[in-house]
């Protein structure tokens, strides 16, 4: 009896997931009665209040990808090197003290990072690069990268420190230096765990809202310049949801781009779980 009722409660998370998926797609669906899927997916302009309105996904998708890739370019090398420092270089006490501190910094709310980006990084970038507006893809990426670093460090360090001691001792016994052991034994053994962590933080970054909302600038354009303002998917949802009448095509279009975001993060997470499992299997 108890087992069955508990099973039902455990199944609640599946129910919740189903409810979220259904709500999202049910609210997105009416949008495609007025607007063709083709024009949505391949449209190059997002002008929801023009007459006729244009709901092209590409500039928003581009904004999300550009900001996230910049964030990863910053966070991955620094984060993984820091994890390698904690796992292979730092004395035990340094790891004991600073690993929790890095984890703690990972819990700082995104709106705080956003405020920092808006009030400090954006004016700084504007002055240094003499930009017309400081809020741009590069500043949003950097802010997002700062925010992603604690996650990258924490997950990579977990993967590195879960490599069996026996492997390390065997390497030392064969005469390898600590550096050689770290780079040729520990790092390869932890690789799938690190990849899982990288994918997870990529998924987090692309779904992050507040930081980009405050510093990305908001111009829906496909631009190669990192110093131009962009309008990521999350930005668009958060900024336009309050301004549009419930039930209008614009309202439903926001659920449609939400569904796109959902599918992207779902794909990334499935991939990440695959690598995480590969790490466990070893």
């Amino acid at each position, binding site marked *: 009896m*108890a*087992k069955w009722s*508990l*099973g039902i*409660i*455990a*199944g*609640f*998370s*599946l129910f*919740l*997931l189903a*409810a*979220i998926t259904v*709500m*999202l797609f049910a*609210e997105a669906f009416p949008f495609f009665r007025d607007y063709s899927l083709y024009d949505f997916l391949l449209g190059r302009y997002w002008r929801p209040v023009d007459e006729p309105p244009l709901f092209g996904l590409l500039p928003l998708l581009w904004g999300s990808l550009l900001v996230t890739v910049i964030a990863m370019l910053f966070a991955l090398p*620094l984060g993984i*090197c*820091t994890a390698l*420092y904690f796992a292979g*270089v*730092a004395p035990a006490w340094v790891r004991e003290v*600073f690993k*929790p501190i890095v984890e*703690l910094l990972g*819990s*700082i*709310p*995104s*709106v*705080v*990072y*956003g*405020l*920092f980006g808006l*009030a*400090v990084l954006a004016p700084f970038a504007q002055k240094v690069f003499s930009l017309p507006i400081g809020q741009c893809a590069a500043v949003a990426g950097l802010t997002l990268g*700062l925010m992603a670093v604690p996650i990258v460090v924490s997950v990579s360090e977990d993967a590195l420190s879960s490599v069996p001691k026996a492997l390390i001792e065997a390497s030392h016994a064969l005469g390898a*230096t*600590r*550096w*050689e052991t*770290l*780079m040729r034994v520990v790092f390869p053994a932890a690789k799938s765990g690190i990849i899982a962590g990288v994918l997870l933080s990529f998924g987090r970054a*692309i*779904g992050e*809202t*507040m930081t980009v909302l*405050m510093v990305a600038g908001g111009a829906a354009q496909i631009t190669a310049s990192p110093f131009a303002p962009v309008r990521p998917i*999350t930005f668009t*949802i*958060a900024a336009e*949801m*309050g301004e549009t009448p419930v039930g209008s095509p614009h309202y439903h279009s926001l659920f449609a781009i*939400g569904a796109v*975001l*959902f599918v992207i*993060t779902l794909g990334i997470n499935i991939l990440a*779980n695959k690598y995480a499992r590969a790490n466990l299997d070893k």
Partner: protein
Amino acid sequence: MPEPTSTNRLKTQRRGFAVFTAAALIILLALAAIIFFMSSRGIKVLSWEFITQPPKKGMTEGGVFPAIVGTFLLGLGAMLSALPIGVLAAVYLTEFSRPGRFVSLVRIGVNTLAGMPSIVFGLFGFAFFVKALGLGVSVLSGALTLGAMSLPIIISVSEEALKTVPMTFREASLSLGATRWRTTLKVVLPNAVGGIITGAILAMGRAVGETAPIIFTAATFYTRRLPASPFDEVMALPFHIYGLVTEGLYPEKQLPIAFGSALILMIIVLSLSGFGIFWRYKIRKRRVW
């Protein structure tokens, strides 16, 4: 001639280690700089009045008391809705289930929920709680949305806590004739409760700092009064910070208030998570079995 090669190898080691150490230093300094900067700007406006008074004159003066209360209400509401379901689900997964299709399906579901962007929860909360259930933009809608977002975290930390209770404890209890249910209630849960509470505190720390899920479900930029019922909308610190820098007529007067609010939010979140992380390390160390 082993001499020169081993010197070279040690030289490589020194260089490599220097790079990693530098990376760690850069990260720690950058994060320390952010905290220092935010605190030094925030502390200028922090006062007893700022914490205990409502905002005045269209957000340009006064305090953030309603936003602090709102933040706690939303955080507590999220935990009240997610904790019972999350803990019971974890009990099922660790104590009562056998590996099989249902369990792996549930795990996939929990992982998927955990990876979903917070703005998607916001959309769901708006479409489901606010509109479909007709709860309106309210404390209740916001707390339930944040609760939905916290559920996977609660499940995984509770599972982790339950798994640290050694098998021998359960076997001893079962061999004394206790039922599975009684064993869970009297032996497993009491030994795991510290870990579960720690995890709940960590989850609450994350929930109160979230902005995206509450923008359309609970938050209002400006109200002088506290919510009188769960169906009232509230102010919340994260949304307040966002509103102060994007809305209103006097950005130069509002920015300092935003920094003050950010400092208070950071203090709340960091003390919740700090407490949680500290206790988790302590529990892990104290374990004698």
